[in-house]
């Protein structure tokens, strides 16, 4: 089984997908189509796109929408639990983190100071709730360095990708965001970021580029 991930050459919203492909220990490559020239050549004019290469002359399986891509890979390779409630709790966390991303997009598109202040508050309030929940889960999971269970899961991977985007990607457009996030991070979440970064299943990918664990802990 081999995969192609089509996306921009950046962290963005695809880091969790990259980590899942790495953790799945499958053959995968990345394509960075010329944009917007290649827009019309994508199934829905957007990215990311995941192509699961066919074997034996069957058709490739193509899936779009970052959440659907993630959940497909996570289920296929065993990073989302079979238990429906446990699966739903992990998916809930992902959706919440993406709500934070949307609030941040609101901040970026704000036209006037009042809107910016309101967007920023919305972003910070929601991020605070998310960090509180993540910390609570880690603590009640015996501070094992995992949100759920005792091995790397979908939720752990999404958390890592979420903070990587905020601290090492968004920072280019909104430099103050990284500072805000750092002041809000708890030791438990920092610990989990480190645990994911050094997890044997993903270290091949997380060791590329600058350490998120270090970026998250910096004063």
């Amino acid at each position: 089984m081999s995969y192609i991930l089509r996306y921009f050459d950046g962290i963005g919203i695809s880091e969790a997908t990259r980590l899942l492909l790495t953790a799945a220990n499958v053959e995968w490559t990345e394509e960075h189509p010329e944009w917007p020239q290649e827009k019309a050549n994508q199934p829905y004019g957007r990215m990311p796109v995941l192509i699961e290469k066919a074997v034996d002359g069957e058709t490739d399986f193509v899936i779009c929408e970052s959440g659907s891509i993630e959940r497909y890979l996570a289920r296929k390779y065993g990073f989302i639990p079979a238990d429906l409630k446990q699966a739903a709790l992990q998916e809930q966390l992902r959706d919440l983190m993406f709500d934070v991303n949307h609030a941040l997009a609101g901040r970026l598109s704000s036209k006037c100071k009042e809107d910016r202040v309101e967007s920023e508050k919305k972003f910070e309030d929601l991020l605070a709730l998310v960090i509180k929940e993540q910390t609570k889960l880690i603590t009640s999971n015996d501070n094992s360095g995992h949100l759920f269970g005792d091995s790397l899961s979908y939720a752990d991977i999404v958390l890592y990708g979420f903070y990587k985007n905020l601290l090492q990607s968004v920072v280019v457009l909104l430099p103050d965001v990284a500072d805000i996030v750092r002041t809000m991070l708890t030791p438990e979440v920092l610990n989990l970021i480190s645990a994911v970064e050094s997890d044997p299943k993903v270290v091949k990918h997380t060791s590329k580029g600058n350490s998120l664990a270090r970026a998250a802990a910096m004063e």
Partner: protein
Amino acid sequence: MLSGSDTVYVLRYFDLIGRAEGCRLLLTAANASWTEEHPEWPAEKANQPFERLPVLVERSNGDEWILCESLTIERYLARVFGFMPTDLKQAALQEQMVDQQADLVPAFMAQLMATDDMKSKQIDEFNTLLDRIVKEHGRILSRNSSKQHLFGDQLSYADISLYAFYKVYIVYLKIYQSNIDEIVKPKLTPEIINLILSIEKEPLLAPHLSKCDSMAAVLTSKAL
């Protein structure tokens, strides 16, 4: 897989179609024991796990379990009650369609709230995305032998989600933008209209849809 017969659900949301119609239709189709709560807002904000709605409360054997995020709630209910395929690829195709539909929400809000200088650009983006969704619905339908369903020959999560989607953009959002139905309706092909009407007639959905205005009159009227 059905949950125990002593399991009851409470859906907490506003007394609006909003983001909860998919959840309502799934609970209805499942023939689950369920009720709705409309918390005082914003008074009850702090009492919700993430200060937002919808919230699903599942009560069984004295235990209570809570889930948030509308699409996570939908996917959970769809899986519990057998409306999501067990085949991972088939499930991903249904989830993909639902995610695409959800992308329209920020585009709708952006064109609604746009300042004059950005209005026309945001309206174009909204229309482009909407056209793509309608086209995708048509494409999926054209590949299915049953024209009463998007996938297979029984009511699935995708059918329920499609119905809720058009209800939102033809009926519900009129409270924000009175001409939204005039923008959306002309884009619908006869096949999609027939699909919506077929889903509306599904016996499993009757307990809920019988309490709502039918989309049939809205969709088949000649006058806009």
